[in-house]
């Protein structure tokens, strides 16, 4: 059974704090993704990674950075959290072979006060 896990389901942080969101997949997938989801805006891609230590900016990378030191783990970092980063954050992974199905983690609802 495929699995993508995220470190927290709910998180409350203060403005200016550094925030780490962790994602782990156990399917040996090459590609991993971080999205944020907001009402009326849908899923927006923040960053993705197609290999260890490789990363590419998505559609809304400002205010975020990522780290992929191991194949199974992809971290999203908010260097200095702001209230407009309050959102649902979803991690996903996908194999680089012909299977295009993308598996999602359960999501982290982050509130920045």
């Amino acid at each position, binding site marked *: 059974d495929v699995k993508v896990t995220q470190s927290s389901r709910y998180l409350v942080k203060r403005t200016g704090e550094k925030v780490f969101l962790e994602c782990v997949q156990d399917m040996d997938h090459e590609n991993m993704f971080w999205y944020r989801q907001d009402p009326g805006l*849908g899923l927006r891609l923040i960053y993705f990674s197609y290999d260890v230590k490789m990363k590419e900016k998505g559609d809304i990378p400002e205010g975020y950075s990522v780290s992929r030191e191991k194949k199974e783990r992809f971290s999203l970092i908010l260097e200095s959290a702001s209230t407009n980063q309050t959102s649902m954050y979803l991690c996903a992974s996908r194999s680089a072979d012909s299977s295009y199905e993308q598996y999602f983690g359960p999501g982290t609802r982050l509130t920045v006060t």
Partner: protein
Amino acid sequence: EDKVVQSPLSLVVHEGDTVTLNCSYEVTNFRSLLWYKQEKKAPTFLFMLTSSGIEKKSGRLSSILDKKELSSILNITATQTGDSAIYLCAVFPPGGGSEKLVFGKGTKLTVNP
């Protein structure tokens, strides 16, 4: 710019009704279209469509792709309250050979008893 447009954005029906959700796309190098269902947490995979005119079916859900019209529909017959969810459409890949899916904003379906 690659884009995926879903309609309607929200829909309220009664149990037993049949619904049709629409997804249209404008992308270069189209390879496949995916449908996901999202309840309270992670989106779960429903269908992947690559060929025009071939219906995919799973229980009361079915979907078909029309490459000429650059669109897909998702049908749900005899709806149940458990079908209440956001239905997401995504297209893979966008132009440039990138590995990222392009998502629509989703259709929020509410099925009332």
